[in-house]
């Protein structure tokens, strides 16, 4: 699925007001994967699924691509239980066997090195979406510091119990689907993206199929 993540369309086709140099960036979603009997997801901050809120495309500066594609990934669990960390940035959000990484139980993180500080418009992430489950205490942070000690910007936080120590999260937990979750990076400039979780509503494991970060290379 290389180079399939993005498709660019002319802004002339859009009716909403946009900046002159912006284009529509469409996200390519993998096929739906629900199988089996899901474990009932129970989280205090679990949102009700609302298909109308799914972000399928967004406006971004011309030249915007997935700058995370093929970039190196590190993790608090350097030897995943299933799969390799490279799967997280291989442009393939499929939920099939062989397409996802399973990390150790409990609080874990993965970190993507964009190899250059880049202004980011959106971040799209897919945890394991073969079962209807929600991931717990999801936090997404951006920084130019590889150790995330300084200059850290939190762009998503559903950690209502403050497991990771970044404060009580206000964002909702959500049921994973093939649409993943598209987060507003708010034009934050950063070289590193770090994503945290603390298991899911089916088991203690942490999973990722894919993480994509959208920005203009070199900017």
């Amino acid at each position: 699925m290389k180079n399939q993540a993005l498709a660019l369309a002319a802004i002339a086709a859009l009716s909403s007001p946009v900046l002159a140099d912006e284009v529509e960036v469409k996200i390519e979603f993998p096929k739906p994967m629900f199988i089996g009997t899901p474990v009932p997801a129970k989280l205090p901050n679990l949102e009700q699924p609302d298909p109308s809120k799914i972000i399928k495309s967004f406006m971004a500066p011309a030249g915007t691509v997935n700058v995370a594609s093929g970039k190196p990934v590190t993790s608090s669990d350097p030897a995943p239980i299933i799969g390799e960390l490279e799967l997280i940035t291989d442009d393939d959000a499929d939920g099939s066997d062989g397409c996802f990484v399973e990390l150790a139980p409990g609080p874990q993180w993965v970190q993507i090195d964009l190899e250059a500080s880049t202004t980011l418009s959106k971040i799209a992430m897919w945890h394991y979406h073969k079962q209807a489950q929600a991931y717990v205490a999801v936090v997404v942070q951006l920084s130019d510091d590889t150790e995330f000690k300084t200059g850290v910007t939190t762009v998503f936080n559903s950690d209502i119990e403050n497991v990771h120590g970044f404060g009580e999260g206000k964002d909702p937990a959500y049921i994973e689907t093939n649409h993943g979750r598209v987060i507003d990076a708010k034009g934050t400039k950063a070289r590193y993206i770090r994503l945290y979780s603390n298991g899911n509503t089916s088991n203690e494991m942490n999973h990722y199929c894919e993480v994509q970060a959208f920005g203009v290379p070199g900017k």
Partner: protein
Amino acid sequence: MDRRSFLRTSAVSGAGLYIATSKSAIAQGEQAGRTIKCALIGCGAQGDRLRVASSQIKTGIQWVAVADIWKYNRNPVARRMEFENKHQVEGPVAQYEEVEEMLDKHPEIEAVFIATPDHLHAPFSRLCLEKGKSVYCEKMMSNTIEGARDMVKAGRENNGIFQIGHQRHSNPRYIHLREKILKKGLLGRVTHCYGQWNRGVAASQPLGIPKNQTIPAEMLEKYGFGSMEEFRNWRWFAKYGGGPISDLGAHQIDMYNWMYETTPVSLFAAGGVDYYDGTPGPDGEPKAKFELPDNVMCLYEYQTKEGVMRAYYQVLTTTGSQGYYEKHMGVAGSAIISESPTYNQVYAEPGSDWSQYAMGDDPILVKAPDAVKNKFWEHPRSWAKPVPKSYNVTGVAKAVADARESKALDPWEIPVILEVYPHTPHVANFIEAVQMKKPAHLTCNVMDAFKSCVTVLKAYECLESGQKYIFTPEDFQV
């Protein structure tokens, strides 16, 4: 005892049985209770199930290493041992592609669990036994009777404890049925048995190959696999496995032998590749093409002390209708049992008063609580009103319908709840036997399992010949 009291006490008694097994083991030998260093060969679904089952055993197991040619399966099992079985692990669990290397580098391994495809059971069991290990090998013993026979010989030629994974032998509920209901004659003379494992098409689909996870051809070839597709779906090919009648049926056909402590005298079987024949499916796409029959029906005859007993068995992979269970039907009552707690009913024939068996703190039976749980089976019903629409007939038909139907049976239940995974008591039984170095402690030794293997695999001779097979005593001897 009423159902409320039963529910209050059965959880304790169910767990108590399990604990009692361990305590009895500890009391029987000086070495009982010691920790056994264990390894697992084969990290697929069955191997992982053994890992999960063993996680509920609190002491006595220490996982040291695993071996599997496929890292995609091997790594998750080894790492889950470190996380989920951590009370059974000290340090990392070593991983190996080759069994020989694992055994050479870890002489401290005392017991090996084998959960590979069936054609590797015999060679790996012999290898481990000859290196002085004890072995727990998954059923079916082998995909061939010759392979199973060699396993019996390997067991005799070596000193290791050798258990086969027919886990119902250690299930307290099954033991209760055999020891306290069948042997005590509650069902009267059992004339017929019925068993089935029906699994629908959705659950019988071929397994695909995960992205970028193909095993090198030379490695596959070394272990006899013709392709990655065959490696993934080995159960459907005679070169590696025994098909559904072996994978699923072996558990239940084995129960006919085990419950009545005998072997059949004859067998007739019918079946074939009825569905997975490569022809277009409902979606127009070609279905999988398998070699071994996807549907098999067997009719066994046993000669018990009380007379002939006929036992029918079916394994269907084209319907999930009514799941999997076994039924024992006697002139005084019937029993339905399964690893699934859904099926645990015992029914008294009219005239059989079982109230005496429900007395005391350790009852043999408890009264069934409601009609809901028995909805698939024997309906206690009012013969007055209401009647089903199908009974709304007149004249001769009505008279015949009422007169010839038996009175409904009286529903009871088996008061044993297994609160651990179905494989857990069997793994525990093996570990206890290894701790004590006592083969007699095993609930499923290799010779018992061999007889079941013969009982099942002879079905293929019937399918080939189309004739009834008459067992000889030699069939069950090694």
